[in-house]
C-alpha cells in the first residue's frame, strides 16, 4: 500500500477494512483503474460550491468499463460497507461536479464506459453507456450522415445524455424535457441484479427503445435523482432533423415586461406553435455570454447597480429580457408558424424581433441558435467570467408558466441576491406548463468572505422561496438534504423505506437527494 497517500476514509470504515476493499478493487479492475494517490484524486475534488472542498473529498476513485465490473464493485462495497458515488462524465458544474456528496465516499467513475451501443436512424432512437458525451454522439451522427438532432444542456460538448437525464436536466429543442424522451434503462441494483426497465426485461424483445411503459409498475423515474441503482445503459429518442430550423430572438426593453412575455408565450407554447423549450434570459446572462465582465464596468464590491445594468443593456444591444425560440419543419410549416408568432407579437405591442440573418453570427444569439438546433458548444461558460473566481451554484425553483408568478419569483430572487452583494443572473426555461427558473448564483470562490456570503444567500433563497410555496427541482450536493426537507417528511419516509428494501447496507450514494439510512427516518 506504499503508494496510497490519500488519508481520507469512508465514514465509519477502518483503514484496514478500506485497504482490504482497495485490494479487491485492484484485483477486479486492475491497478490502473483504482486511484488512491492524492495527485490522481485531485481532479475529483474541484467544486464550485461554497463549502470547503475537503468536505467532498473522495477516499478513492475506481473506473469500470463493463457492467460485470460495476456488479463487482457493488459486491465489494457490500462486503466492506463502502459508500460509492457514481458519476458518468462528472461535469455537472454548479451541481457538484465529480465530487461525492459526503467526504470519504469512493467515486465510481463510468466515463470509460463510452460505447454508443445503437442509433436507429429510422426510429430515431439511441442506446448509450454513461460515458458517452453529446459531442461524441454529435460527431457520430455527422460522420455517419444520420439525420437526427440532439437535445442537450449548455455544457453539451463535455456532458452526456445518460447523466443529464438521470439528474432530470433539460435542453432547448422540442425534445428538451430529457426525462420525457428517455426510453429504457439498464440499472445495476445494490444486490448485484441487472434490471432493465420497460420492455427491456423481455427475452428476445426489440421494443426497449420505443415503448416506455412495459408491464406492471413503471419504475424508471424512481432511479433518477436517486440512489437506488447504478444506470449502465440508457435509451432515448432523437428528433428527426427537419428541413428548416428558424431560431429567433425577441428583445424586451424593461424588466417589468416579464409577466407580459410569459402571457404572450404560453398560448404559443401550449399549442405547439413554438415547439421547443423557450428561454427568457435576463440582461446579465446575455451579457456574460458575449464576453462582458463586471470588472469592465465597476470594481466596487457588492451587487451591481441598476444603472450599470442599463448601461450594459445599451452597450451590448440587449433586452432586459431576451426570448429565444425556434421553429422546425418544412418551409411552409415554418412560415405559417412564424406568421402566427409575428401576429401575436404585434398584438402584444412590444418586443423587438431578431432573426438569425439579422443577428449575423454574433453572440449570444449564435450559441442560443446552436443549442436550439443541436450543435454542441460551451459558450455559456462565459457566465463564469462575470465575477470570476470559480464560484457557481444553480438555484432553480419551479414555477407555473404564468406571468404573475414569474414576476413574483424574479423580484424575490433579485432582492435576496442583491442583499448579499450578488447579482441576479437568471433565465426562465419554459416547459409546457411550467417554468424552470434557473439562476446562477455566481461568486468569487477564491474570496473567503464572498464564499460565506454566497452560502448565506443560497440558504436564504431556499428559505424564502419555501415560505411562499416554491421549491427547486434540483440542487448541488451541499444542499441536497436541505432541499429534501422542502418536499416534506411523508415523501422522505417513503424514499427511506425504498432505500432500506433495495440497499440495506446503504452503499449506493448515501446522501443523494437527502436519502441516507443514517438519517432518522
Amino acid at each position, binding site marked *: 500500500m506504499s503508494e496510497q497517500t490519500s488519508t481520507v476514509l469512508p465514514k465509519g470504515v477502518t483503514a484496514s477494512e478500506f485497504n482490504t476493499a482497495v485490494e479487491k478493487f485492484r484485483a477486479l479492475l486492475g491497478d490502473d483503474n483504482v486511484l488512491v494517490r492524492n495527485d490522481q484524486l485531485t481532479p475529483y475534488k474541484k467544486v464550485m460550491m461554497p463549502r470547503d472542498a475537503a468536505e467532498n473529498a473522495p477516499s478513492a476513485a475506481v473506473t469500470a468499463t463493463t457492467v460485470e465490473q460495476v456488479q463487482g464493485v457493488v459486491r465489494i462495497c457490500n462486503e466492506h460497507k463502502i459508500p460509492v458515488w457514481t458519476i458518468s462524465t462528472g461535469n455537472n458544474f454548479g451541481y457538484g461536479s465529480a465530487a461525492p456528496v459526503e467526504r470519504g465516499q469512493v467515486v465510481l467513475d463510468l466515463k470509460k464506459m463510452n460505447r454508443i451501443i445503437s442509433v436507429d436512424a429510422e426510429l430515431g432512437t439511441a442506446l448509450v453507456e454513461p*460515458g458517452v458525451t453529446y459531442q461524441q454522439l454529435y460527431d457520430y451522427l455527422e*460522420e455517419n450522415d444520420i439525420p437526427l438532432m440532439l437535445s442537450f444542456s449548455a455544457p453539451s460538448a463535455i456532458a452526456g445524455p445518460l447523466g443529464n437525464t438521470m439528474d432530470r436536466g433539460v435542453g432547448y429543442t422540442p425534445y428538451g424535457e430529457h426525462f420525457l424522451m428517455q426510453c429504457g434503462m439498464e440499472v445495476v441494483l445494490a444486490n448485484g441484479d441487472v434490471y432493465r426497465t420497460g420492455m427491456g426485461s423481455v427475452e428476445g424483445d426489440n421494443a426497449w427503445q420505443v415503448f416506455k411503459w412495459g408491464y406492471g409498475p413503471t419504475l424508471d423515474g424512481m432511479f433518477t435523482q436517486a440512489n437506488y441503482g447504478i444506470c449502465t445503459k440508457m435509451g432515448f429518442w432523437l428528433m428527426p432533423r427537419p428541413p428548416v430550423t428558424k431560431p429567433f430572438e425577441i428583445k424586451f426593453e424593461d424588466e417589468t415586461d416579464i409577466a407580459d412575455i410569459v402571457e404572450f408565450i404560453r398560448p404559443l407554447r401550449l399549442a405547439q406553435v413554438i415547439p421547443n423549450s423557450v428561454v427568457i434570459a435576463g440582461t446579465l446572462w446575455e451579457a456574460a455570454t458575449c464576453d462582458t465582465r463586471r470588472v469592465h464596468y465597476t470594481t466596487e464590491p457588492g451587487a451591481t447597480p441598476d444603472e450599470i445594468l442599463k448601461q450594459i443593456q445599451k452597450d451590448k444591444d440587449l433586452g432586459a429580457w431576451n426570448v429565444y425560440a425556434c421553429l422546425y419543419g418544412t418551409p411552409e410549416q415554418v412560415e405559417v408558424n412564424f406568421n402566427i408568432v409575428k401576429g401575436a407579437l404585434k398584438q402584444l405591442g412590444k418586443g423587438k424581433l431578431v432573426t438569425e440573418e439579422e443577428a449575423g453570427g454574433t453572440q449570444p444569439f449564435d450559441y442560443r441558435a446552436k443549442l436550439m438546433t443541436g450543435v454542441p458548444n460551451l459558450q455559456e461558460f462565459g457566465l463564469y467570467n462575470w465575477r470570476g*473566481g*470559480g464560484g457557481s451554484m444553480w438555484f432553480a425553483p419551479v414555477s407555473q408558466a404564468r406571468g404573475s408568478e414569474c414576476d413574483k419569483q424574479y423580484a424575490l430572487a433579485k432582492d435576496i441576491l442583491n442583499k448579499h452583494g450578488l447579482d441576479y443572473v437568471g433565465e426562465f426555461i419554459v416547459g409546457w406548463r411550467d417554468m424552470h427558473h434557473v439562476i446562477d448564483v455566481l461568486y468569487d470562490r477564491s474570496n473567503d468572505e464572498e464564499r460565506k456570503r454566497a452560502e448565506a444567500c443560497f440558504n436564504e433563497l431556499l428559505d424564502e422561496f419555501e415560505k411562499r410555496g416554491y421549491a427547486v427541482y434540483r440542487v448541488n450536493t451541499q444542499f441536497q438534504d436541505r432541499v429534501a426537507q422542502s418536499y416534506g417528511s411523508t415523501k422522505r419516509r417513503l424514499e427511506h423505506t425504498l432505500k432500506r428494501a433495495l440497499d440495506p447496507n446503504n452503499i449506493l450514494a448515501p446522501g443523494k437527494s437527502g436519502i441516507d439510512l443514517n438519517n432518522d427516518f
Partner: protein
Amino acid sequence: MKKPELLLAGLFGCLTLSAAAPVLADDEPAQWESGEQVYQKVCGHCHEAGIGPVIKGRSLPPAYIETIVRHGFRAMPAIRASFIDDPSLNAVAEYVSKSAADTGEYGD
C-alpha cells in the same frame, strides 16, 4: 483490465473503428487520435471562444498545461484521466505549447 478496443469503438463510433488507430505511442493505445483532436473537441470550445484565455502561440510549458488541466484553475474545470488520459494530455499539452498563434477574433 482496460479494454482499448471498447474505448475506441465508443469514442470514434462503431462504423469508423478501422480508421481510428491511435497515433500516440505508449504501452496502451490512447483514448484520442491526437493532441489536435483533444484541443478541437474539448479545449477549443472555451479557449477559441473568448471564454478561457488564448493558450495557443504562447509557448506555455507542457508541464504547466498538464498541471492546470488536472487541478483546474478558478472557473476552469479539473479534467480527469478517465476523460483525457495521460498520453493524450501529454499530446495536447505539446500541441498547444508548440502551436502558432491564431489570427482570429480571440487569437490576436
